[in-house]
């Protein structure tokens, strides 16, 4: 997604190496995705659902 959109930056974070980040974003299971510190996506979703949830605020049809 970051590769395609010039506005998106994506971090793959190894949670056990950075417990402070894992705590801050309440990572109790992986994968967990946090978008702009507000949207949280738990688990691995199918691509369409993942993209839809991650980019809900840019969508016309709403989250």
């Amino acid at each position, binding site marked *: 997604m970051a590769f395609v*959109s010039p*506005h*998106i930056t994506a*971090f793959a974070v*190894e*949670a*056990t190496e950075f417990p402070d980040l*894992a705590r801050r974003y309440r990572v109790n299971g992986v994968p967990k995705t946090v978008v702009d510190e507000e949207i949280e996506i738990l688990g691995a979703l199918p691509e369409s659902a993942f*993209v839809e949830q991650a980019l809900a605020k*840019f969508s016309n049809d709403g989250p």
Partner: protein
Amino acid sequence: MALISSSDQERLRESFAGMTRPVNLRFFTQTLDCETCLQTKQILDELPPLSDRITIDEVNLILEGDTAKAYGIDRAPAIAITYEENGVAVDTRIRFLGAPAGYEFISLIQAVLLAGGRPPQLSAESLARLAAVDKPVTMQVFTTPT
């Protein structure tokens, strides 16, 4: 001893052979207080011998703090993936925080191939949603080494 087995090396060599652009991995490291920086360096150092299109640049997180800041990186080990197109360095805005071991290694290789010119494998629907993004978005995907 090599961290990547010889059969995996062979497979990677074949995958990398399809790359059409030079890829540069900026490796952010620090000397002290970084348990996995050495392991990350060892993993990364095994990639350039598998493709003449892959290079690694080490950036000292402390001494070259401005570069790190430009990439939005404030901890080590971290990797930022860039590629070169028409002589210009392009940032993929794909970052890895922590050692790319286990499954993360596969993700790293996928990112390198993408930067190297492999077409994105997203659906037309996803590409349309991405085209609508007009403000900065930061995504963090937390994983564990398995």
